[in-house]
């Protein structure tokens, strides 16, 4: 089904299989991450001149939402430093396994938590405090450190990458949106897996570890939970695992059948709309409400935020799909049709992010030369002036992103829709949401 296998190219296969290139990237990322924590904690409290704010919420966020997620799915997870110290301690090694005796508790995550609700909650927690988080270096430093230590702690108690799979706030939406990406990791031939003994891709072997993401590659049909860590490519004794180039959003033809994922789609859609209005709009009182955490106004803001995400958006969606009858239950149709909101949400975030990234990207140059605000000038750019970039293409780019998102969602709605029911309510819903987003951003 028009897939191009990238791992057929020896250079790509060998680079991905070897542990050394990956380790080099890991070390750079980990050092950068720890430096960002330090910068947040001891550097200048002025966000726009602190490495942690500029490189996390402007540079990294831009690369994540504009490049990594749309084009590489969980590509960021492949290089993320957060799970590394915990995983190395858990494994008792940095490279290939000396022995496979578990070093720590290695408990299985309880069934109650084996879904993405914890990730929905952790994302919402950050989202409600986002105005403070995005502008205050020491808060960013604390949150980054908290995630690192949470990952280490969870690795000490549970097996595999429990933090990444069940707690990471970023992983929740990267996983959902990775279904739209044009690359995938899949097995080549199912029969080979059927005959395989021991399933080392999941259980590990002398060549590598069992899937840290608790995924059985042989049964994987969607990108959602594969973190592209390459362990299975190393352990598979039959060379049966490949990385393929594929059409965009191939996974979305198979609708979601889970409530946690459906609500994740609404969480991302709702938060993009609210951020566009509160952060990029001209209404000062909303910004004050969002920033003054703990005040009465903030409680109202938090209530409106949560009500929009859990009641208004899903409620209107349900009313819409109730107008047309199908054979499936309303609950099933809610879950499968909410799949259509995935490309829409991704494009909403792209359009929203373009605005504040292009406006503030010039801070990256200054923060590179003086990351802590101590008066350094490492690369000579410490006095680079703030200057919005590419402002003439911003509005057209946002329109393009949103209209493409709308068409993409409409197409997805058609693919996941059951025969006999109409897709018009979903498409109208997407159109109204897109118009609201256009009005807020333009």
């Amino acid at each position, binding site marked *: 089904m028009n897939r191009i296998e990238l791992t057929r190219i020896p250079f790509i296969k060998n680079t991905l299989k070897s542990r050394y290139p990956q*380790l080099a990237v890991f070390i750079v990322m980990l*050092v950068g991450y720890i430096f960002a924590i330090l910068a947040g904690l001891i*550097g200048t409290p002025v966000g726009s001149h602190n490495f942690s704010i500029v490189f996390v919420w402007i540079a990294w966020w831009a690369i994540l939402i504009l490049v990594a997620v749309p084009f590489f799915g969980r590509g960021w997870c492949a290089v993320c430093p957060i799970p590394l110290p915990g995983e190395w301690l858990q494994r008792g090694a940095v490279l290939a396994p000396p022995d496979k005796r578990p070093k720590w508790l290695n408990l299985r995550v309880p069934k109650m938590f084996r879904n993405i609700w914890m990730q929905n909650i952790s994302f919402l927690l950050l989202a409600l405090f986002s105005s403070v988080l995005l502008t205050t270096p020491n808060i960013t430093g604390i949150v980054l450190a908290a995630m690192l230590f949470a990952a280490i702690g969870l690795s000490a108690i549970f097996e595999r990458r429990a933090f990444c799979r069940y707690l990471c706030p970023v992983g929740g939406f990267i996983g959902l949106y990775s279904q739209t990406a044009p690359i995938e990791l899949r097995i080549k031939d199912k029969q080979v897996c059927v005959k395989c003994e021991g399933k080392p891709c999941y259980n590990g072997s002398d060549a590598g570890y069992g899937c840290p993401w608790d995924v059985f590659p042989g049964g994987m049909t969607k990108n959602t939970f594969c973190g592209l860590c390459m362990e299975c490519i190393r352990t598979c004794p039959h060379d049966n695992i490949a990385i393929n180039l594929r059409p965009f959003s191939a996974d979305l033809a198979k609708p979601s059948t889970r409530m946690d994922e459906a609500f994740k789609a609404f969480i991302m859609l709702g938060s993009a709309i609210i951020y566009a209005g509160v952060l990029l709009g001209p209404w000062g009182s909303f910004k004050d409400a969002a920033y003054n955490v703990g005040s009465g106004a903030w409680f109202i803001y938090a209530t409106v935020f949560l009500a929009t995400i859990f009641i208004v958006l899903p409620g209107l969606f349900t009313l819409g799909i109730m107008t047309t009858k199908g054979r499936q239950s309303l609950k099933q149709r809610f879950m499968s049709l909410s799949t259509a909101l995935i490309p829409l949400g991704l494009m909403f975030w792209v359009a929203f992010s373009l605005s504040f990234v292009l406006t503030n990207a010039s801070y990256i140059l200054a923060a590179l030369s003086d990351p802590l*605000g*101590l008066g350094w000038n490492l690369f000579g750019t410490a006095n680079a002036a703030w200057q919005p970039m590419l402002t003439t293409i911003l509005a057209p780019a946002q329109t393009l992103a949103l209209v493409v998102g709308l068409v993409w969602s409409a197409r997805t709605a058609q693919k996941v829709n059951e025969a006999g029911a109409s897709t018009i309510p979903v498409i109208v819903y997407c159109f109204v949401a897109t118009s609201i987003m256009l009005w807020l951003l333009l």
Partner: protein
Amino acid sequence: MKRPELISRILIVAGILLAVGAPLFLWARTPLIHARMAEDGGWNPDVIQAETGKPLHLKLTSDDVVHGFAVGQMDMQSVDILPGKVTEITLTFDKPGIYTFFCTRWCGLNHWRMRGTIEVTGGWISSPQGAHPSLLLFPSTFLSTWTLTLRTTRLLFQMKSHQQ
């Protein structure tokens, strides 16, 4: 333990120590004077020690909004202290005493409260012709153009008062 594993572990630990140690070390070595709106603490530190004749090299930064810096009892142009950036200034005192420094750009309702002191100890430095003998111990590069201007101004005032 195999060689690659050992090297990898060393690299990782070295990287982490560098990422933690280097910023901490450099930060501790850079004493900054932080300017904040008076409601949030004002100048920090707000008392600075100095000696007459010894150039006082200050590094100032703002933690919130645009502030300014000037010292009373001294003829100087005020300098802007910008958020997240460092302003460097060198002051030399000829006379011991307590000098007040204050904010020169409006930074809120309590802007006028934003002040600190420089406690200058040491002897009077008053030599209308040429440099003070003890200053000859310092290489000339220590004296910035600014302090020369300051000394000349003092000189002119002293000459004027002598004439009267």
